[in-house]
């Protein structure tokens, strides 16, 4: 070994003498080294990842028929979108070279063209929507999460979150975002978590948790106990989450809440033993009043039928006291000012029957095993402590408990949450979407002491919620660029008609000028479209116009006076500025026009595909029944509706037919003849 080493040393010395022995040799050697060193830079450049992709791209396009044009538009080298005011430096087009080449649809990434989009990449760059590291020029660094760059590219299924950074109003192209945002309000997430939307308004809960100030008038402590243990056992559609309370905790909370309730006990109902016939009549009334437009109930076959504006009524008979139920149905606002429930004008007999029917919807086994001794002062004190800890007053009004401020973390910028501030539970991938998903699915997986309760969301609901939360980024500079200050239009009718509007809660379902619900037709221009006599009749007894509709307008049992008052208000206030109401003089429409209109109706425009006009022969289910349209609508409205319905009610199912004046006049003439007094025949 030693000999070998000696030998090697000798050889090195000889080599050194050769290389640096004289100044000429040394100069030569250093020159060669310098050239080698200089060569490293271009050599390294030659093997850059992006260059490899650009070469791949050239090879891909060279055999295509449009190769010359593609080659001409191809720009070699690093390509970058630089938008200093948005802090965007995106070099994505360096590899994604064919973003604008529609002819390459179907090739694999990174050369696939970008699908059509509402915004230009030169205006917003790439990472504002897709996230990832814009300045990076390697695949790994641009797309993945690294220690230096925590936000990896957003998986496509959450991409709608990008739109929600700026847009507050629901967009037609973002169903997940829209649904996620509505879940945040419908399940009351925002009752505990503060969340300021891009428009600058604080999101408000839409779940309307009931006030508990007078709860003992409404129900028993036993029911409260059983409900808070497991709300979904009572109503599978309940939005109140399961807090996983122990028996003792539920006992103490129910004791405290019952002890805080105030108000006189209601007089018990006279003759509260209801006969079967009253129950049967009540069921009929429940159907006729279209209670199911807002309330759900499980039917005999186990299916839940009905709307989700009011609570599910499957077991309401075991929940509420009959005397409270009667008082509530008589005038809901008396117990709960601000409730969404309309004030139905029910007669004493109707009240008795409806109360009898709802009271019969019992499920007593759920309460059979609940036996509570009167609550002791120490139990009540413990109950108060729990109510404060769990934040019950964030949703419910409770006497003696203040609404807690900042009870749960503010979610306004949760979409930009640095991962360093996130405590990951074991088994969860280190990314923001994965964290949010896991947290919503099972909050207590992050620690038994976590306060956040658990809702049983479906997979699609969880994804939608994650999308809505990821939209809450801190990139306000992007928002300022696009979004004019968002103004909410708060329409509230005034005067005596306005009182009726709020009493009947018309805007729970209908909307006017952007305020109100979307369950029923927009009423903004209703006064320009309908005839007075028809409207008064309809208000007194709403019949259904659309055979395929499941939810229908309830019958409020309005008096003649009330119906006339509402009709006058609607006809004088809800007028469109788009035309004058007497533009088309109905008396001047000729029978020749009408007969031409008939052939257009059944021929060229095939209106009968969607509308029933002749109850015997037509079958279309989609649009309103037109058998009596001449009694319902006025000629000018029909004329403009045929020309362009979308201009009158944007988003209506009726098309913009872009119809010429002659055709529109002819069909209007035909439709105005439809004044048959026969009741419209629905689907058989």
């Amino acid at each position, binding site marked *: 070994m030693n000999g070998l080493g000696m030998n090697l040393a000798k050889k090195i010395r000889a080599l050194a003498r050769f290389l640096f022995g004289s100044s000429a040799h040394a100069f030569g050697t250093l020159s060669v080294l310098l050239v080698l060193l200089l060569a490293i830079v271009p050599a390294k450049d030659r093997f850059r990842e992006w260059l490899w992709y650009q070469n791949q791209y050239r090879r891909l396009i060279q055999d295509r028929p449009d190769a010359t044009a593609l080659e001409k538009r191809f720009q070699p080298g690093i390509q970058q979108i630089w938008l200093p005011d948005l802090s965007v430096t995106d070099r994505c087009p360096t590899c994604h070279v064919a973003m604008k080449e529609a002819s390459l649809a179907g090739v694999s990434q990174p050369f696939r063209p970008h*699908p*059509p989009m509402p915004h230009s990449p030169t205006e917003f760059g790439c990472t504002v929507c897709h996230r990832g590291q814009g300045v990076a020029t390697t695949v790994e660094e641009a797309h993945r999460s690294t220690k230096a760059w925590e936000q990896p590219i957003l*998986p*496509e*299924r959450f*991409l*709608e979150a990008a739109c929600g950074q700026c847009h507050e109003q629901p967009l*037609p*192209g973002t*169903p*997940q975002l829209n649904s996620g945002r509505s879940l945040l309000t419908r399940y009351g997430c925002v009752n505990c978590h503060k969340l300021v939307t891009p428009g600058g308004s604080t999101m408000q809960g839409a779940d309307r948790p009931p006030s508990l100030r007078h709860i003992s008038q409404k129900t028993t402590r036993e029911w409260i106990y059983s409900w808070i243990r497991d709300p979904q056992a009572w109503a599978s559609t309940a939005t109140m989450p399961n807090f996983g309370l122990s028996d003792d905790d539920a006992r103490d909370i129910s004791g405290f809440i019952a002890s805080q309730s105030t108000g006189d006990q209601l007089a018990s109902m006279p003759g509260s033993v209801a006969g079967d016939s009253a129950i049967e009549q009540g069921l009929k009334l429940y159907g006729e009043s279209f209670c199911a437009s807002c309330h759900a109930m499980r039917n005999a076959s186990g299916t839940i*039928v009905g709307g989700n504006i009011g609570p599910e009524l499957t077991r309401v008979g075991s929940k509420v006291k009959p005397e409270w139920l009667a008082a509530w149905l008589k005038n809901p606002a008396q117990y709960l000012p601000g409730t969404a429930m309309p004030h139905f004008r029910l007669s004493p007999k109707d009240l008795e029957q409806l109360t009898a029917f709802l009271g019969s919807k019992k499920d007593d086994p759920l309460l059979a095993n609940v036996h509570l001794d009167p609550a002791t002062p120490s139990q009540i004190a413990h109950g108060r402590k729990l109510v404060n800890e769990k934040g019950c007053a964030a949703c419910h009004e409770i006497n003696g408990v203040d609404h807690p401020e900042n009870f749960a973390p503010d979610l306004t910028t949760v979409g930009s949450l640095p991962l360093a501030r996130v405590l990951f539970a074991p088994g969860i991938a280190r990314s923001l979407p994965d964290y949010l998903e896991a947290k919503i699915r099972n909050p207590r997986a992050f620690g038994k002491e976590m306060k956040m309760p658990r809702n049983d969301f479906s*997979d*699609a609901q969880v*994804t939608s919620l994650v999308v809505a939360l990821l939209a809450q980024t801190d990139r306000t500079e992007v928002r300022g660029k696009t979004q004019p200050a968002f103004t909410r239009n708060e329409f509230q009718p005034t005067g005596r008609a306005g009182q009726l509007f709020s009493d009947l809660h018309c805007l729970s379902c209908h909307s006017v000028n952007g305020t109100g619900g979307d369950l029923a037709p927009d009423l903004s221009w209703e006064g320009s479209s309908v005839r007075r006599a028809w409207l008064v009749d309809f208000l007194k007894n709403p019949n259904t116009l659309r*055979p*395929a509709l*499941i939810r229908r307008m309830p019958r409020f049992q309005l008096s003649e006076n009330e119906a006339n008052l509402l009709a006058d208000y609607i006809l004088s206030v809800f007028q469109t500025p788009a035309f004058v109401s007497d533009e088309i003089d109905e008396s001047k429409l000729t029978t020749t026009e009408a007969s031409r209109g008939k052939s257009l109706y059944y*021929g*060229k*425009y*095939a209106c009968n*595909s*969607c509308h029933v006009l002749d109850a015997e022969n037509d*079958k*279309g*289910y*989609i649009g309103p029944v037109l058998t009596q349209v001449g009694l319902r609508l006025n000629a000018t409205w029909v004329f403009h509706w045929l020309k*362009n319905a*979308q201009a009158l009610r944007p988003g209506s*199912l009726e*098309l*913009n*037919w*872009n119809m010429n004046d002659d055709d529109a006049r002819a069909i209007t003439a035909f439709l105005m003849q439809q004044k048959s007094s026969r009741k419209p025949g629905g*689907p058989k």
Partner: protein
Amino acid sequence: MKRRLILALTLLTLAGCQRSRPPVSTGATAFGASIAAVSQETQVGRVGALLDRPLAVQVNDADGNGIAGARVEFTAIGGASVIPASGITGEDGQIATRVRLGDVSGRYSLVATTRDRAGKPLQAHFTTIALDYRQALGRELSEKHCARCHDERSTAERVSNHDNLRAPPHSFFDGTTLNKLPQSELLAIVAHGGAAVGRSPEMPPYAATLSASDIAAVLAYIRAIAGPT
């Protein structure tokens, strides 16, 4: 030096051995004679999404009755994943798995495999479809404007108008018909209506109601789900 070489070689050999360990017990207590999909429905979802409904298969004995205790393996091809990937059939002979679609739009094939007593594989095939953003937008628009007539199924929220029309509208899954139409003709039908191209006037023109990009999204959706492609 030599010692190290031997050590390395030994390690390599051991690593090789790992692959050929004896087969583990499959847990199967019964073997079927055939396997069938419980539903033939082609499920459609967004890329990367968990499909709404699980995929279920039934393993049958020779008489066509469901058989409990048979082992079924689910294999997803090309980027989709299944949870769980295998299992044992229940009392009714059925077993189901949840599917998460891959991150690229397109069709994903899934295969459910069980073995008969002789060890011969029996298979049931599924197709699922992943939609990209634009196709999904097309689906939304289609649900609002097209499905009432083009989908003959009624739901609790929507009564189908399909059977009320003289010329029955084509289902958007019907690739045999729709994929034969060139893009320009499909576009003309949607934009200008059936009458303009010599078809039924019951198909109305959407050019003034939907924007050009909305119509393109609807067509992208139709092309994505119509099969065979």
